[in-house]
């Protein structure tokens, strides 16, 4: 019986050692382990995992192909729906998507779909095949893609495969978006994985132009009217950090998770060969419970600080991937649940000295279905800290919408777009976090691909 085999454990770096380095935590499966794990799949008639995947990956099909030892087929099955399997295998919240729906999970442990996907993705990166698209004749139609994160890369790849001349405009000096500035090396290796995925997009004929801030350097109108682009895809992400609006938030030592992670990841501040400074201090408190909070707190730990998570709900509500919370705990991160900051305390020189918190308890469920936290009366207490990192979520940058006539946004600042990515302005499409607000890599990738189809249809209808 296939399901009698326990889930194949994945090899990981020792927690005590990895808490001092930036090497990838998880080593992943080798072929033998991946095939053994693949043998656990029941190949259900009605695969619930597929229904639970935001892009409908044909999971039982690629698992069966791997089990049969046909890696090229496995890679091909994934490629039909996903252009970034090495990345999604590492960063998707599998426990609430595919693996959360796996029938084996009801009584035991679900198939390790994420780890299998990662194995196949990495195999494909190691064994590249000549892409048919490299020889696809260019059709002479130019499309501009704004942002080189998951949404933009996915959109650009598909369009290039179909013969479009695609240019990706990136505001920063390096392409990759959140994959480069946000997610740390220890969770997503930059050279081995991200750079190669981007290299694949480049080989499809996509051009990249860095240091172009759309809304400042150029505008959507100038791209359409002066530079000859016939359609634009906006995949500019959700880059604006939120703060709490509490007392002491502008003290020296209070930073957004975006700033802390950008210094560490994009600017390599932890590497003495790079010039960008980072301030870590001795005691770091990270406010928030999502993946970004986990990334920030584990980065602080690796830089030598005592690192604590402060989160206003209970552990059950932590929005971070289960694996990240587990890894963080193994690495010695302190978790203070049901705790909410009310003020940041400073010393005489204006530097952070601590953080005043209140204890919370869970009340009635709110509109998101999560029980909303309520302050426990008289529960104020202080935590010593010299750095406070705010990881409270992000919202889309208003720069593009505010400089593009006819491009509407909702009250949260997200660009209004339909299922296919069509915005309120003709010829302008959007997808990913710029439309949904901060979400996942796979949703952004899916949105990029849907928009590519819509752009193709739009440009064909115009021809």
């Amino acid at each position, binding site marked *: 019986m296939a399901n009698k085999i326990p889930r194949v454990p994945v090899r990981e770096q020792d927690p005590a050692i990895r808490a001092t380095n930036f090497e990838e935590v998880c080593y992943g499966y080798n072929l033998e382990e991946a095939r053994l794990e693949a043998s656990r799949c029941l190949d259900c008639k009605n695969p619930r995992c597929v229904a639970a995947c935001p892009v409908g990956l044909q999971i039982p099909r690629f698992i069966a192909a791997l089990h049969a030892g046909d890696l090229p087929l496995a890679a091909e099955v994934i490629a039909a729906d996903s252009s970034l399997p090495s990345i999604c295998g590492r960063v998707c919240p599998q426990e609430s998507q595919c693996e959360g729906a796996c029938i084996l999970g009801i009584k035991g442990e679900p198939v390790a779909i994420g780890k299998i996907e990662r194995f196949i993705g990495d195999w494909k990166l190691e064994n590249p095949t000549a892409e048919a698209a490299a020889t696809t004749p260019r059709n002479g139609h130019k499309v501009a893609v704004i942002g080189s994160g998951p949404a933009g890369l996915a959109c650009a790849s598909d369009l290039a495969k179909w013969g479009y001349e695609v240019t990706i405009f990136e*505001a*920063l*000096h390096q392409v990759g978006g959140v994959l480069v*500035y946000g997610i740390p090396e220890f969770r997503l290796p930059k050279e081995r994985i991200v750079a190669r995925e981007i290299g694949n997009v480049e080989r499809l004929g996509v051009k990249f132009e*860095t*240091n*172009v*801030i759309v809304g*400042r*350097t*150029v505008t959507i109108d100038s791209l359409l009217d002066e530079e000859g682009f016939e359609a634009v895809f906006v995949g500019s992400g959700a*880059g*604006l*950090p939120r*703060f709490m*609006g509490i007392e002491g*938030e*502008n003290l*020296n*030592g209070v*930073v*957004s998770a*975006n*700033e802390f992670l*950008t*210094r560490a990841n994009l*600017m*390599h501040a932890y590497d*003495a*060969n*790079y*010039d*960008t*400074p*980072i*301030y870590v201090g001795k005691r770091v408190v990270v406010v928030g419970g999502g993946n970004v909070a986990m990334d920030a707190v584990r980065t602080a730990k690796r830089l030598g600080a005592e690192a604590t998570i402060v989160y206003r709900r209970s552990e059950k509500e932590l929005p971070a991937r289960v694996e990240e919370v587990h890894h963080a705990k193994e690495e010695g991160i302190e978790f203070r649940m049901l705790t909410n900051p009310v003020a940041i305390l400073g010393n005489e*020189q*204006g530097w952070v000295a601590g953080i005043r918190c209140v204890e919370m308890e869970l009340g009635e469920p709110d509109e998101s279905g999560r029980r909303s936290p309520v302050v426990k009366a008289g529960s104020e207490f202080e935590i010593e800290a010299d750095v406070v990192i705010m990881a409270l979520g992000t919202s889309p*940058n208003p*720069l593009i919408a505010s400089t593009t006539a006819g491009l509407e946004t909702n009250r949260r600042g997200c660009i209004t777009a339909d299922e296919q990515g069509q915005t309120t302005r003709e010829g302008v499409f959007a997808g990913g976090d710029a439309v949904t607000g901060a979400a996942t890599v796979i949703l952004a990738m899916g949105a990029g691909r849907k928009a590519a189809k819509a752009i193709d249809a739009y440009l064909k209808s115009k021809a």
Partner: protein
Amino acid sequence: MYKILEKKLLAENIYAMRIEAPRVAHAALPGQFVIVRADATGERVPLTIADFDPNEGSVTIVIQTLGVSTRKICALEAGEYLSDFAGPLGRPSEFVHEPIEELQKRRFVFIGGGVGTAPVYPQVKWLHEHGVAVDVIIGAKNRDMLIYTEEMARVCNTLHITTDDGSAGSKGLVTAKLEELITAGNHYDECVAIGPMIMMKFVALTTLKYALKTTVSLNALMVDGTGMCGACRVTVDGKTRFTCVEGPEFDAHKVDFDEAMRRQGMYRSQEQRAAAIEAEREAGHKCRIGLDK
């Protein structure tokens, strides 16, 4: 890669560089800035735009060597390349969006302090080209540290110079010169001051007395310069603002300068350490107490 077309030493440790950057030159307006990275390991350094020429596709920046990163940029020569040059960033000066006939009725006084004189120039030049009368006060430590005096003289009505030691112009601070002009009967509708934070603070305190509308351009710390990191947070009128996307120009009478000055020092100890290591390295000294680790 962005070619350095020309490099000039303006004063001790202050250089002007004309950079080939057609997209930035085409889009730039007075009041905006760029982010510059010297090479692949460099920091992203925000620098104000001192001039731009859309026809040539060039942008001029003026840099004072203050730390490792600015020294790295200044070590490059004409014909060499900057790794990155992103912009224009920030909002243009408010006056570029106002009706010209309204502007022409107004009288502006600009104050440039030290290296802050450079970003004053494109604003004065723009107003001059649009027929608006502008007086300028340039302040510096001494005669050798004065920059942009000739360029400025060509585009303003009256140029006043002050130095700390009186080696050029009148001896004293820019604020004293401003008060002298006002009490002598000069009427100004608007003041723009760009320079060290402490100078801008005292200009703001001075003009408040005369209810003279004053704008300052803040040189806050930044990483990305596009609104992503929030390192450039500044309190204006009791509210937190991001200098990179909501500034860099703000109403001087509403800026919390003390907080802004404190926040500029956030990475000072690291910067000083880096500079010390760099100096030792240049001197061929190997650190024995592990500061270079």
